[in-house]
C-alpha cells in the first residue's frame, strides 16, 4: 500500500513490474496510467500541474483506504506527479491487486474517479496562444455517483 506525490518522473514499467512481481496471493493486477495528451489542434507546448502539499497526501491516502475497505485488495499503489510535463509524459498511475479481477478493475476505476475530482490537483495548459486552466468535467463529477453507498 503506497501513495507517492512527486515532481520527478516515474518508470511506469518498473513500477508495474515491482507491483506485480511474484504476487501469488492475488491473480489479478490492474493498472491505469494517465498521459499528457496533446490538444486537438496539436499545439500543446506543456502542462503544469499545481497541487496542495499536505492535503494531496491526505486525500490520496483517504481514497486508497476507502478502496481497501470496499474491495478485497492485497495491494494498492497511487503515484501522482506535479510540475511541468509535455505531451506523452506520464502524469500518474494507480495499480490494484486482488484475488478477483472484478475487484481489481472496480477498485482501480474508483481510485481514478475519486482522484480526478477529489484530490487537489489543477492542470494548466500552455500553447503558443497563452495558458488556460483545464476545466473540470461534469462527466467526472457524475462518475462519482456510481460509487455512492445505497
Amino acid at each position, binding site marked *: 500500500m503506497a501513495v507517492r506525490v512527486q515532481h520527478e518522473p516515474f518508470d511506469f514499467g518498473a513500477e508495474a513490474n515491482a507491483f506485480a512481481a511474484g504476487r501469488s496471493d492475488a491473480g489479478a493486477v490492474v493498472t491505469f496510467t*494517465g498521459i499528457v495528451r496533446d490538444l486537438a489542434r496539436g499545439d500543446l507546448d506543456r502542462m503544469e*500541474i*499545481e*497541487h*496542495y502539499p*499536505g*492535503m494531496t497526501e*491526505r*486525500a490520496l491516502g483517504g481514497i486508497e483506504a476507502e478502496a481497501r475497505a470496499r474491495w478485497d485488495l492485497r495491494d494498492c499503489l497511487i503515484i*501522482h506527479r506535479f510540475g511541468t510535463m509535455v505531451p506523452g509524459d506520464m*502524469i*500518474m498511475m494507480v495499480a490494484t491487486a486482488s484475488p478477483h479481477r472484478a475487484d481489481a478493475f472496480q477498485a482501480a476505476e474508483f481510485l*481514478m474517479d475519486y*482522484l*480526478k*475530482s*477529489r*484530490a*487537489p*490537483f*489543477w*492542470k*494548466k495548459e500552455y500553447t503558443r496562444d497563452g495558458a488556460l*486552466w*483545464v*476545466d*473540470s468535467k461534469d462527466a467526472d*463529477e457524475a462518475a462519482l455517483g456510481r460509487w455512492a453507498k445505497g
Partner: protein
Amino acid sequence: MIEILYFAWVRERIGLPKERLETSAATVADLVEELKAREERYAAAFADLTALRVAVDQELTEFDAPLDGVREVAFFPPMTGG
C-alpha cells in the same frame, strides 16, 4: 490567526498563494464576505462561489462550515487531477 491558501486561478486572481489573517468570521462564508470587502481582486476571485471549492484543515467541506478552532482554509477551483 488562520492561514488562508489559494490555488490555481484563485491564486492568480488574488495574486498570492497564501496569507495569514486575524478574523472573527464564524463560518467560511463569513470569511469570504470579509475578504471580498477588502479589495477588488478578492471580490473578483469570489464572485461566483459555485465555481469554487473550499477545504478546511485540508478536508473538503461546504461554505457554511464553522471556523472555530480552524488553522487552515484553502480556496480553489474544482480539481482536475488524474
